[in-house]
């Protein structure tokens, strides 16, 4: 069972004021998407970040006090918590809202990498369009949005990749199989960063590193996401039938501009989950994984080796190759997408060692390094020049006339998995084979009859009988299509729910 999605928190600023109010700016940006007034629909009942996958519930998160402080400070504002969040569910099944003072776009659930990449790029377009509308109100091109993970002053924000996982896989198996892979995944998925920093402490300009997030990884495991960030987040919030599924919520990843990097990041992670499910992940347990994340990130020459518990010393590419070889043995021939991934994974690891220049336009950290080194030669400046930090930031600007990556893409130097037509389609509709598309269909067809929504449920208004469409175990693509057909053709939600219920009864 493959199902994945990406949540991206964007950086937001304005160039017409010395200091912005991030609460207001993020809220106004999200609301600029709306044609009509905001209606509160998101149901937060399914969200509980205190449940830990290791089998316990924490009494508090490190961020709770800070959140309380912000809530006290924000209490004077003339809008409620729900107004501030401005949670929207879009006609493509995505969620767009203000999360922790960052506009966040969560893709609908996807089953294929092509769909996922199209929906990840759709997020950029939807935010750009919202910024353009907001700029009209402001009277100039003032709002800037960045798909990155740091402000270079010790504040990081996330790009989380999520995977549906069978609950039957013991959590310790996930940890053992995933941690070495995630520590080394940055050679493929790192977005590149000029300089080093740490959580809410000083920034040191200077040498280039692979990853934006590595500086902020402070624990191997943990339920926190804003402080003491872990390599493997243990939040147990399945957004599905809790008895059958987990949602693996990974916070270590960088936000990628390169479509190829996004596809390989999520695709190879999915292959590793397939290996873990089969009990076939390689044994690469790291002696000091948190230190290793930073050491590997800070060596763009990829020569650094890290120690395993068994005494071996391996480079990031060596670790990735161990996973690739296991995946090649176990998963080859399963389907077309798996075979594509295996080919590209192998080719990428090989090119990282022998001809990195061929990965420009495919991997962000390689592409950014190439751009910056070209600029350094032209301008005769060194890595410690603050101009390079600004160029790093602008690599991630999502305005097509400003962003450096988007400039490169416009010149045809970036590898594309999706097309502009596919992105336009993904703005209108979600994937037809996942509950994400079904959620979007309900928003399109019955917008006035939706009382509340969350990832696994839609509650419709009216009547005494249950008006819920429960999607907590709706993952079979054929079943999704059958349900979508009913909602596409029914005259009302109650008619659709009755038909869907009748169909399920007959199936039993």
């Amino acid at each position: 069972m493959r199902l994945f999605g990406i949540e991206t928190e964007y950086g937001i600023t304005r160039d017409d004021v010395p200091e912005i109010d991030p609460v207001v700016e993020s809220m106004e940006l999200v609301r600029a998407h709306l044609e009509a007034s905001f209606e509160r629909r998101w149901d937060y009942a399914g969200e509980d970040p205190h449940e830990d996958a290791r089998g316990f519930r924490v009494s508090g998160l490190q961020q709770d006090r800070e959140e309380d402080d912000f809530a006290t400070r924000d209490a004077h504002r003339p809008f409620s918590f729900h107004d501030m969040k401005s949670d929207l569910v879009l006609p493509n099944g995505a969620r767009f809202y203000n999360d922790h003072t960052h506009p966040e776009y969560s893709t609908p659930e996807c089953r294929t990498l092509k769909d996922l990449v199209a929906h990840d790029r759709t997020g950029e377009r939807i935010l750009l369009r919202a910024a353009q509308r907001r700029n009209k109100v402001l009277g100039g091109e003032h709002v800037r949005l960045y798909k990155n993970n740091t402000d270079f002053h010790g504040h990081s924000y996330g790009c989380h990749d999520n995977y549906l996982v069978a609950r039957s896989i013991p959590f310790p198996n996930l940890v053992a199989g995933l941690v070495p892979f995630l520590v080394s995944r940055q050679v493929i998925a790192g977005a590149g960063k000029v300089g080093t920093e740490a959580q809410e402490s000083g920034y040191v300009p200077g040498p280039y590193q692979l990853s934006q997030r590595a500086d902020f990884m402070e624990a191997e495991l943990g339920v926190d996401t804003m402080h003491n960030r872990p390599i493997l987040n243990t939040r147990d919030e399945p957004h599905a039938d809790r008895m059958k599924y987990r949602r693996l919520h990974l916070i270590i990843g960088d936000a990628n501009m390169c479509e190829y990097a996004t596809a390989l990041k999520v695709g190879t992670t999915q292959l590793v989950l397939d290996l873990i499910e089969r009990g076939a992940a390689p044994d690469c347990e790291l002696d000091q994984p948190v230190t290793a994340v930073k050491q590997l990130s800070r060596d763009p020459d990829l020569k650094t080796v890290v120690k395993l518990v068994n005494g071996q010393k391996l480079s990031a590419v060596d670790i990735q190759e161990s996973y690739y070889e296991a995946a090649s043995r176990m998963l080859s021939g399963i389907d077309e997408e798996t075979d594509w991934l295996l080919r590209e994974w192998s080719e990428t690891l090989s090119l990282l060692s022998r001809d990195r220049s061929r990965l420009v336009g495919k991997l962000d950290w390689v592409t950014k390094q190439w751009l910056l080194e070209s600029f350094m030669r032209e301008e005769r400046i060194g890595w410690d020049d603050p101009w390079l930090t600004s160029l790093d930031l602008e690599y991630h600007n999502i305005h097509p006339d400003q962003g450096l990556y988007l400039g490169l893409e416009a010149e045809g130097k970036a590898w594309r998995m999706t097309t502009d037509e596919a992105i336009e389609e993904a703005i209108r509709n979600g994937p037809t084979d996942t509950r994400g598309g079904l959620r979007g269909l309900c928003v399109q067809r019955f917008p006035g009859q939706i009382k509340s929504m969350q990832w696994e449920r839609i509650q419709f208004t009216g009547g005494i009988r249950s008006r819920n469409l429960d999607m907590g175990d709706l993952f079979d693509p054929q079943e999704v299509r059958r349900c979508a057909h009913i909602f596409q053709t029914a005259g009302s939600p109650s008619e659709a729910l009755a038909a869907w219920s009748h169909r399920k009864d007959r199936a039993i």
Partner: protein
Amino acid sequence: MKPSTMPERREGPVDPMPQSPRPEEGGGPRRQETGSPEKDNLMKRMRKVDPKQAERYRQRTGE
């Protein structure tokens, strides 16, 4: 659900900065060999970036 028996691991202090590779290890490709970005477009765009842009850029911590 029973609490998992996974032990908490604490890491000792280690300098996370990598050491430079020894000369005999060769070193990776430090410079890309694809030439420079298109000078008329991309370099122009890069030169337009305000060197102080990142210094002014401040966000609140997110997830």
